[in-house]
């Protein structure tokens, strides 16, 4: 049977999916070698003062329940495999938010022997949140920008993980 669905029906379905993703993104957090500065600011973002949950964001413990991987740290060699494994366990569509200078480029730990230098050395990153550490306001801004981009653009197809493990 040839499933040629009518375009309007498909569009509507896509809109509903986007609405659900944008209004209730579930996060998983991973520390790939960070000093914890960014991690405690992420936790503070979920605490009463900044309250990320009012945006529909929920922090989950399992990658299988999450849409967005919020990642800190300059990616140490030991953490790399675990980071990849978590990413693989997430279902499509999935997004990665790199939080803090270390996650962007390695930060002060660039060129350290055990550090790969930035999340985008390993995974495709959708949003970068700078700061050392990134302030809760910046983290919220980053998440909001990511969600806004989902509304404005269709969800991109996930890139194939390349043979050398680099997500680009």
């Amino acid at each position, binding site marked *: 049977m040839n499933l040629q669905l009518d375009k309007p029906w498909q569009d509507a379905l896509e809109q509903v999916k986007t609405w659900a993703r944008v209004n209730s993104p579930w996060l998983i957090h991973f520390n790939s070698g960070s000093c914890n500065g960014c991690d405690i600011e992420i936790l503070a973002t979920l605490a009463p003062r900044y309250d990320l949950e009012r945006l529909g964001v929920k922090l989950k*413990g399992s990658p299988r329940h999450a849409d967005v991987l919020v990642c800190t740290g300059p990616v*140490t060699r030991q953490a790399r495999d675990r980071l990849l494994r978590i990413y693989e366990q997430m279902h499509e569509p999935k997004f990665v938010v790199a939080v803090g200078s270390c996650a962007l480029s390695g930060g*002060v730990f660039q*060129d*350290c022997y*055990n550090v790969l230098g930035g999340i985008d050395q390993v995974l495709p990153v959708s949003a970068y949140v700078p700061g050392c*550490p990134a302030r809760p306001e910046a983290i919220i801004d980053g998440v909001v920008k990511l969600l806004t981009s989902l509304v404005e653009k269709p969800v991109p197809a996930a890139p194939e993980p390349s043979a050398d493990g680099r997500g680009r």
Partner: protein
Amino acid sequence: MNTTQQAERFTIPIGPQHPALKEPGHFALTVDGEIVTSASVRLGYVHRGIEKAVEERTWVQNLYLLERVCGICSHIHATAYCLGVEQLAGVTAPPRAQAIREVVAELERIHSHMLWFGVAAHEAGFDTLFMYSWRDRETVMNLLEGLTGNRVNYSANVLGGVKFDIDSAQADAILSGLDFLEKRTHHYLDVVSTDLVFLRRTRGIGVMTRQQAEVLGAVGPTARASGVERDIRVEAPYAGYSEYPVSIVMDTTGDLEARFEVRIKELFESYRVIRRILRDTLPPGDLTTRVPRRIKENETVIRVEAPRGELFYFMKSNGTDMPERIRVRTPTICNMTSVIRLTVGHQLADVPMILVGIDPCFSCNDRTAVIQDSCGNRQHWTWEKLRQYGIEFYR
């Protein structure tokens, strides 16, 4: 083969992804039924190679690197480093700077203990307490931001002194913030010592005797809760602590409840000493003294009291503008040995609380633990599962 006659043992690797603690670690626990029979830790997830990196950066650059060993205790690392460089160079920062260093260090201790308290409450399943304590912690974050310009990684220190002064408006803001925090801290002390549900998870759990604490090399509040008198601020005062001393806070029971109470009571000491410094008015004078770019050949040892315990720096200079060697020994590694021993003989459900009781800072130490099952049975548990297990067990 009669399987009921064989003790069933499970290996439960936990981590390295911690929903609660936000720090990677891999603990392996071997359990015989409910009881932990052996435990070990595997670290390495946060190992960044800092001791090597410092040899390739100048003395000034290293200040910014060493501040980021740990986001929770960044100021104390920077203070230890600056005191070390000043000692190597044979200079002393002015008294006003030392007093300001002490004020920021105690504010950091407050934020760190409140952070820990919230995380510990979360481990116990007491999320309301976690949210309240982190809301109250925002008060001290505001004070730190108002004083230093940043909520975390305050960068208060420069080689030879501090970057900023405390004026009377800031002092007033700090004092009124402390009044609020003190009221809330009384409430938390009350909860910790009287809430029956909480006490079931802490009283009599994870007992470490004084002798064990000494033999296992415990430091900080973990040691003080077992009656070991170790507090660098008291036994070897540094920065402003000779002028503005603190009293040592101790307990003798050595269980988790004692560790909670010691940390909360230390908060009162922090409030007291900050008030004293700000009300007595700071010593007059400069904020910095000159430190040469090249430090003559020398060696020194610096010990300071981080929120988690003794922080030990050994520093060696070689006449150039880069260090020869800096050894950073952080407190959690000392306490980690003790916690591994303590889990043995306890129930699996107690493991999250015992671990959190030492206030582990993985980025200071980066360790993981793994447990081996003698029958080769392995179960993969996430930390979240172990935490939930503990909560359900005590329900």
